[in-house]
Structures are given as structure tokens and as C-alpha cells.
């Protein structure tokens, strides 16, 4: 199939960006979306032009590196799918596809479709862990964990940190991302000791990074490639409230 691509090009964070239109031909329906961009980039390189920069690595939907805003949707039209797992059979010959980077103030554009998501790492470093030194762990089966709790914790822990939730949200809120970690650890007995401090610190860091507030549109859940439920946000809010009430602050 032949396609028209309108791609956001931006030299660096300081420069002004703009859409540039490209034509790609003979695209196979079996190609992945990123392979289609590879074809475009190979053509650009042959012509001596600067290829389109985009983040990607594992190309199997788990590393969270890729993330493109495709026709107005984070990771494109397919539910529960990262950009790298989106295949061209979901488009039609002659389509025009608009490709943008994640748009959110805390994710400044680095170049073209590449943005800086280090804010997410900084939130996790503000207490998004259980303090246990190597070697001091008790026998693994000494603390039983109800299967339901373990399964729910897993559902939250499956977050790949791609930032689609932020990109999809009109407020650029990172609530689903933060809630996924808070909820994962709060559901497990091992996470209880630090849970109050954890939620307070992570939320404070989230605010400091400039992410917006949650207004319950659920756009994050709809666009999350791992289909993480907004119920984790509710849990985080409960945890936060409980922590506030007991912290004396």
C-alpha cells in the first residue's frame, strides 16, 4: 500500500517544530509501524537527508521505549498495543497518517518524535521501592501472599513506563503511572512498612515535575498498552488520604 505521512520534525528542544509530509510506497500489511518508518528512514538516508528520530528498542511491546502519537491517539488505533506491535494491516492504501511525539510539558521534545521522559524515573526514585538490602531477605515462602493480591499487584506492576497515559490525558497527568507503582507495592505485605511515606513522596515528586491533575476522564486507561485499570488511581487516592491523615502534616 501507498501512504502519506505527516510527521512532526523538530531539530532540538530549542528549535520550532513543524509537520513535514512524506510519501511511502509498497508498504506490506505485515510490516510493523516502526518497520514502515525504517523504510522511510532508509530512503531519507539514501537521499542524504536526516532520518526521523524515534525511540524504540525491544520491538516486542515490553521495554516501553517506543511511543508515538498516531492519528491523535497514543500508540495508534489498536487497543492494548504499543507502537512497535501495531501492524500496517490496520491501515488502508492511500491513508494519511499523522505522527507526533508525546505532547506534555514534563516531556520536552529532544528531537523529532523523541521526548525526555526522565521525570518518570525521578518519581520512582522518590520512594517507589521497598527498602531491602541484598542478602537480608527472609525465606521467600515465609510470608504467604493471597493469590488475588499477588495477581492484582502483578496487573499494576506490568506498567512499561512508556508515558502513553500522560500523553493521552488532557491534563498531562501521570496519575496512572504513579498509581500503578503505589498500588503494586501497597497490595503486597512486603510493601506495608513504607507505604505511607512512599505515596506522599511519590505524589510530591509527581507534582514537582509539573504533571497535571486527574479529572477522571479515564483516557489513560483507554490508551494504556498494558490496559492498567484506573481502579489503581482510586487505591492510590485512598492510600494518600490515609497517609496524610496519619502523618500529622
Amino acid at each position, binding site marked *: 500500500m501507498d501512504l502519506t505521512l505527516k510527521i512532526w520534525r523538530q531539530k532540538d528542544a530549542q528549535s520550532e517544530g513543524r509537520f513535514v509530509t512524506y510519501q511511502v510506497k509498497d508498504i506490506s500489511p505485515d510490516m510493523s509501524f516502526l*518497520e514502515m518508518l525504517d523504510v522511510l528512514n532508509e530512503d531519507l538516508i539514501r537521499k542524504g537527508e536526516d*532520518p526521523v*528520530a524515534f525511540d524504540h528498542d*525491544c520491538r516486542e511491546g*515490553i521495554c516501553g521505549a517506543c511511543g508515538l502519537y498516531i492519528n491523535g491517539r497514543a500508540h495508534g488505533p489498536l487497543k492494548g498495543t504499543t507502537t512497535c506491535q501495531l501492524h500496517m494491516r490496520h491501515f488502508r492504501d492511500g491513508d494519511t497518517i499523522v505522527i507526533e511525539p508525546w505532547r506534555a510539558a514534563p516531556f520536552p521534545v529532544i528531537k523529532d518524535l523523541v521526548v525526555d521522559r526522565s521525570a518518570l*524515573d525521578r518519581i*520512582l526514585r*522518590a520512594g517507589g521501592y521497598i527498602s531491602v538490602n541484598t542478602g537480608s531477605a527472609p525465606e521467600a515462602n515465609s510470608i504467604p501472599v493471597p493469590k488475588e493480591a499477588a495477581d492484582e499487584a502483578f496487573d499494576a506492576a506490568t506498567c512499561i513506563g512508556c508515558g502513553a497515559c500522560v500523553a493521552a490525558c488532557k491534563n498531562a497527568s501521570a496519575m496512572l503511572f504513579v498509581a500503578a507503582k503505589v498500588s*503494586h507495592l501497597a497490595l503486597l505485605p512486603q510493601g506495608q512498612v513504607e507505604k505511607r511515606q512512599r505515596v506522599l513522596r511519590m505524589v510530591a515528586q509527581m507534582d514537582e515535575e509539573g504533571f497535571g491533575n486527574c479529572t477522571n476522564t479515564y483516557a489513560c486507561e483507554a490508551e494504556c498498552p498494558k490496559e492498567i485499570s484506573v481502579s489503581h488511581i482510586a487505591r492510590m487516592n485512598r492510600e494518600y488520604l490515609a497517609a496524610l491523615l496519619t502523618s500529622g502534616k
Partner: protein
Amino acid sequence: MTLNAKIPEGPIEEKWTNHKNHLKLVSPANKRKFDIIVVGTGLAGASAAASLAELGYNVKVFCFQDSPRRAHSIAAQGGINAAKNYQNDGDSVWRLFYDTIKGGDYRAREANVYRLAELSVNIIDQAVAQGVPFAREYGGLLANRSFGGAQVSRTFYARGQTGQQLLLGAISAMNRQVDLGKVEVYPRHEMLDLVVVDGRARGIVTRNLLTGEIRSFSAHAVILATGGYGNVYYLSTNAKGSNATAIWRAYKRGAFFGNPCFSQIHPTCIPVSGHYQSKLTLMSESLRNDGRVWVPKKKGDRRPPNEIPEEERDYFLERKYPAFGNLVPRDVASRNIKEVCDEGRGVGPTGMAVYLDFSDAIKRLGRDVIEQRYGNLFEMYERITGENAYETPMRIYPAVHYIMGGLWVDYNLMTTIPGLFALGECNFSDHGANRLGASALMQGLADGYFIIPYTIGDYLAELGFEKVDAEHPAFKEAEKGVKEGIKRLLSINGQRTVDEIHRELGKVMWDYVGIVRSADGLNKALGMIRDLREEFWRNVKVVGSDEELNASLEKAGRVADFLELAELMAIDALHRNESCGCHFRVEYQTEEGEAKRDDEHFAYVAAWEYRGPDEPPRLHKEELSFEFVTPTQRSYK
């Protein structure tokens, strides 16, 4: 130089304990006087960084990804082995050790493998304490499943995302140390050289991938945990960025390279669909529990699978290996699949695939059961191929998956350059000539959590606090070399893209240094690799500048190193005149066509020494002695 593996004396079950008792220590107050560099943030790198920082060392961590959490350990699906014996099915440290050494076709070091099995149990404890949500039974205790090459159930898992959960656990431990100010992370930094001063590793030179800045970092010790080099084959199940550059530069600075030709090719991956293919996706080994592998009996039979009657199908694994059937080990399955496709009996649009058919299992167990067992895999298959595997058989083909070879290390995980350590997949140590399923995660974490924190102290205690300044001429010389290399790549301005040449290299490697190897083929490959390398440096086209984010420049540097590493792999494969594990030389097979080891002449680790661009590498041998197990011929008939 003679290789000294520093294997401790004594009975195998006491070696590690005795060794730890005699390693030199750095006192708690002195640890903060030492700086350690860790390159790579997968399971091995992240766990090492966290554990060393906990001890009090100052750690600097480097990765090329935008976040350490994206390292390719994240993609491991199946699980992690541990000899917990929670199932009461007779498992033990000894059995895990034995399965691993046999699975590796007796080309790994006994002492290392035993230690790995011993430490496996601590890994599970550590991960659970970090909050890794492993699968559990209704009673709240940990669940296990079975995996290839074992007769006990010892694999711990977190659905099909075990690597992700273990890595996020290790990264969270590392993040805690970042929070505490003991670890500094440098994402989007690529290590481009190792700096050696007076024979000791003293630091690295990196390129900031956003700005192009070339910068030196000095330290008391350098740890490489940079993963495998499966991407030398262009197509593999590795992430696109996975590369050999760090270990290759270390090799050129004097670190010996162990068994470079041992590369594992996984039998069940989604086949290539066209020339544009950028990577391959693994379909878990567990599918072979219920799927039957077959091809048409007739060559070139183009009928759709449901129109081929039962009597015209060849269930070739069941036919040739009645005892193990579809569950033969990875190397055996891969070889047989390639064979039937080479005969012209392959299926699908390219003819380079075989069927993995679930229709009998669905008839026997019902679709619901199959969906419960493999639902997510069927979904992934459909996402990629657009086909519904409940109705039509899956098509699968082998793909490069894991590299057993890597930098040679002694029992302390130190390379032949003092102060340079190699952890996880980038060292050669524990898997011999073939890795068993669910063992890679185990090794990465054992190395990082439980081995390096002990062994690095022994080195540092002797070294002393003094650090070499990053202004030292050795750093300046390395920086200059790196800058010149980059300038050279940008100045060629030829006709061919990096990917074109890389694809071509991959084809040579797949055809001649892949599943089946021969002396003729390897000699041919050597010529082709040299020609391709020559063409690369004459005719590659790299656009853009070196002062910005430039993916095509990054790729070019990595492919330049693959073009050299490929030659060493072919040399190693050519010199090893035997078949063992993944290394199948057509000249050395049994009458039934199985791998024929030659323990008399090849029971050694081949450790290659770099001797300059125009000199052939020199072979050093670390003889493997088997005191505790007796090597036997593997049979799966």
C-alpha cells in the same frame, strides 16, 4: 600469559563458601573511597549497582537507553530456575547443577555452575522481598512450572513477563541507591572505549547520545554487564540496540574472548515475513508441550494446512525422537526444522517455516484449556501475523536468541584485564555450549547480587585508594581514538546504508555460522566477512553530525564492531573440530546425525587474545576437568 580460572580447592559444595571465607575485605569505612563503574542496566548490571552501593561503594551506571529500566532483560518471558524444591519432587542444588552442566553439553566450568545452582535459592528470596509479584497458589505460596531439559518443576514465573518483573525489582533496588545518593545514572550514554593504565582497567570513555559529547570517567574498577551480541546476525530476538561494542573494545584492550561461536538459536519464533523485517519475536518454549510440529511429506506442497490429509503430514520430531518427541532440546529442534525447510518442505509464503499445530490438543482438552495455558501467546501471534492459531496452525522458525560466548572470566568474574569484570550474558561462564530455559535470569542476578559484591572487594583491597585522573594521557589517547573513529564514519559518505550492510552480514552469519556449520562454509564466511568489512569502511553512508542525537551514527559504530566480532566467531567455529550443544559441525556427527563431541581434544574453553588489526587472534585454552560429573553423550531418541 597462562589462564588461571582461580577455582577454589575442595569438595564442590564447599568451594564457594571456602572461597568467600578467604577473600580479602574492604572495611565499611573504606568502601566510600572506591568508585565503581557499571555499564549496562539489565539484571546483572542493575543488581550489581544496587548491591555494591548498599555496601557503600560509589557507583556510576551507564546505559544507552533513555531509562535503565528498558534494558533487554525486560523482555525475558518464561521464568527463572531455583532449586527451592517447594514441589517436594526431588529437586536439589545438585540436580540443578547437573541439569545445567549437561544441558551445556559439558563445556562449562563445574565450580561456576555449582555456585550458580547454590545461589539460585537466594535470588528468589531477594526478589520476593523487593515486591516481585511471582505467580502464587491459592494458599499464598509460590507456584512453579516445568521447563525444558529438567525432570522437576523448579521454574518461578510472573505470567509471561518474568524478566520484566525481576528487572523492575532490581531497578527499584538501584533507584533506592540513587535516592540515597550512592548511585549516579547516566542514561543515553554509550561506552566507546575502555581505559587501561599499567595493565589495570581504570575507566571508560563514553559518548553522550544526545549531545555527542565524548567524556572520560575514571574509577577503581569497571564492570561490564552489557548483554549478548545476537544482533551480529542482524535478525534476532534481541532489542534493536543490543550490541557488542563495550565487550569488543574491552577485547581489543586485552580482555580474552571465550567461546565466541556459541550462539543459541531458539526453535520457536515467528518467521520472517519480508525483507524489511527488523527483528524476530520469540514464542515461548512452553508451546511445544501441546503443539505438534509438522511439514508436508511432499516437497513444495502449497496446499493450505487443513487440506493436507493426516497421512501426507510428517511429524518429523515425533518420528525421529520418539522418546522426547516435540520436546527435544532447543538445539536439536532448531537443527531439524532447518533441515526440513532446506529439503524444500517448509511452509508459508517464504517456505522458511514449519507448522506448530494445536488442533489435536484442542480436540483433546478443549479450546478453553488451550486458551488458559497460552492465551497471551496466541494473541501476540495474531497481532504480528494476523492469523488465528486456534483455527490454523502457527508457523514457526528458529531465530538467534542468546549468546553463551562472551568475555572470558575467572571464578571471581574478572576478565584477563585486572579490574575489569564481566557479568551476565556478556561473560562466557555458566552455560557451556547450550543454555537451558529459565537459566539466563538466574545467572544475571546471581552474578550481580551475590557474586560480584564479594569478589570485587578482594580486588579493591589490594588495589589501594588512589585513582587515576581522567586527565591521564591514557584517557586522552582513548578519547582521541573514539573521536577519530566517529569522524571516519561520518566522512565516508558512500552509497550503502548501515542496515543494508548489517543485513548482508547477518545473512552470512546465519548461513555459515548458524545452526549448522562446516569447514567449507566457515572458510567461505571468513572471506565474505572480510570483504563486507572492507566495503563498509569504503562505501557506508552515515548522515547527520556527531553533535546531536544521531541513530544512524550509533548504528554504524555498532555494526563496525559486529563486522570484526563476526570474523572471530567464524575463526572459533572453524577451529572447534567437534560438535557440541549449539555448535553443530556437519563433519562431526554420529551415524544418526546427532552432535558428536570430542572430549579428548576439545574439552576446553577457547579464550582468544587480540593481537592487533592485522594479526590473527591467539588461542589460549582453559582445560575443563570434570571431577564431579561424568560427561556422556546426550541422547533424546
